[in-house]
């Protein structure tokens, strides 16, 4: 009889050890699952993250990312703390990206640089709010509009902020179609948005497409070696795709690696969102600063777009400035939609995609610059 009662007691241990913070987090996990499954918002990310949150917060399950020896802890340690997951994800991204529109019209690359300015503004704000340098850099990189880059930098320098930064980065990437349009409309007159541009499709030779990842990989890594793992994998993936001789490797990079890493990355990030480290004031600040970072990317992109319109004597539509973020292809789609809304004859997609792929390179470069500054100042990772 005693053994039976002990067995019943042990069955209820989970309920007995459930804290209010864990219960709130499980609820948050279920909300993420609802958004992913019910509303189909970024399901590839939200389903594994949401279920990871649920698993990680269940008491005694030993499935939190920080639960030493647990299955998810092993994945978290091997994949995120070593930075392997974000780096592998860049291999898959490289194999999916077509740099053709950017190569056909390299001037749009400048928008990819302007789309990173929010990072630097947010860095100053975060420092002003009392975050230490490593945390401030990690938060600011949300402005790269690029989940893997944000995870890469944060896992390197401020692991405590990893759950908040990664969720904020992915959330704001998904919210680009909501965040950018009001800023774009607010900063331009209708006449500016109507600026007609030829659709501009131009083909570049296959030789150029093959040479680009090799030359860009070498040049960007020589300029900013701290971003080498991300840039190296991005360019390797792109070279596989453009070489035309390794179809099987392209397939495995685009599908197997990208999908597997997305699943495990999402699961680990979700399981690292525990009540104790997520339900904090800092998390709210991270979200607020991330929002500022992405908004400022758009503001600076639009300012450059307006300048380019003047310099080109009205030949460049200023909306293109908003496509310089790394949120691919969301920003390009927003620019296309806003341009067409102002003038049904406008079709800015080709130019916007070029600027958007430029933004992907720009975000890695910006992150590498941040890491180089930290390194130059002799600032190491937070313990």
């Amino acid at each position, binding site marked *: 009889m005693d053994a039976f009662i002990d067995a019943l007691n042990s069955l209820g241990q989970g309920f007995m050890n459930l804290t209010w913070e864990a219960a709130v987090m499980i609820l948050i996990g279920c909300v993420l699952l609802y958004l992913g499954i019910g509303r189909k918002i970024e399901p590839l990310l939200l389903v594994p993250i949401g279920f990871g949150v649920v698993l990680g917060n269940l008491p005694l399950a030993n499935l939190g990312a920080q639960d030493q020896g647990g299955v998810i802890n092993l994945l978290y340690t091997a994949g995120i703390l070593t930075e392997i997951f974000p780096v592998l994800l860049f291999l898959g991204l490289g194999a999916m990206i*077509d740099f053709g529109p950017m190569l056909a019209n390299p001037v749009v690359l400048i928008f990819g640089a302007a789309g990173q300015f929010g990072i630097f503004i947010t860095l100053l704000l975060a420092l002003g709010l009392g975050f230490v340098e490593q945390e401030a850099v990690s938060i600011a990189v949300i402005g790269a509009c690029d989940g893997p880059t944000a995870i890469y930098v944060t896992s390197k320098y401020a692991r405590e902020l990893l759950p908040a930064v990664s969720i904020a980065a992915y959330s704001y990437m998904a919210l680009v179609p909501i965040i950018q349009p009001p800023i774009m409309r607010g900063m331009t007159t209708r006449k500016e948005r109507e600026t007609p541009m030829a*659709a501009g*499709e131009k083909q570049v030779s296959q030789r150029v497409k093959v040479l680009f990842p090799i030359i860009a990989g070498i040049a960007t890594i020589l300029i900013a070696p701290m971003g080498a793992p991300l840039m190296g994998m991005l360019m390797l993936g792109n070279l596989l795709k453009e070489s035309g001789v390794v179809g099987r490797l392209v397939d495995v990079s685009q599908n197997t690696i990208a999908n597997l890493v997305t699943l495990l990355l999402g699961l680990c990030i979700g399981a690292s969102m525990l009540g104790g480290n997520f339900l904090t004031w800092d998390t709210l600040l991270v979200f607020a600063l991330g929002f500022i970072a992405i908004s400022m990317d758009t503001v600076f992109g639009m300012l450059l777009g307006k300048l380019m319109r003047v310099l080109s004597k009205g030949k460049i539509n200023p909306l293109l400035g908003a496509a310089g973020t790394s949120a691919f*292809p969301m920003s390009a*789609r927003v620019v*296309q939609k806003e341009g*067409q*809304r102002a003038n*049904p*004859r406008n*079709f800015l*997609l*080709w130019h916007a*995609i070029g600027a958007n792929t430029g933004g992907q390179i720009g975000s890695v470069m910006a992150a590498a610059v941040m890491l180089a500054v930290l390194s130059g100042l002799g600032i190491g990772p937070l313990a």
Partner: protein
Amino acid sequence: MARETIEVPITGKIISVAVKAGDTVKEGDVICMLESMKMENPILSPVDGAIVEIGVEPEQVVKPGEKIAVIEY
């Protein structure tokens, strides 16, 4: 009456055509959906008018400059 030809802006595939010859359209109405760069893009009417000719059909692969429709206004 003036006529305006709507041309394919970018290489892609026509997914659907929303109008037929004889239909009246308003500026901003969808003429057809063009799939390009893994996105579905509406091609819009630039003016209020009547469709006098349609040059594309669903599943057709199209190149820049090809005729989508002619509108009389």
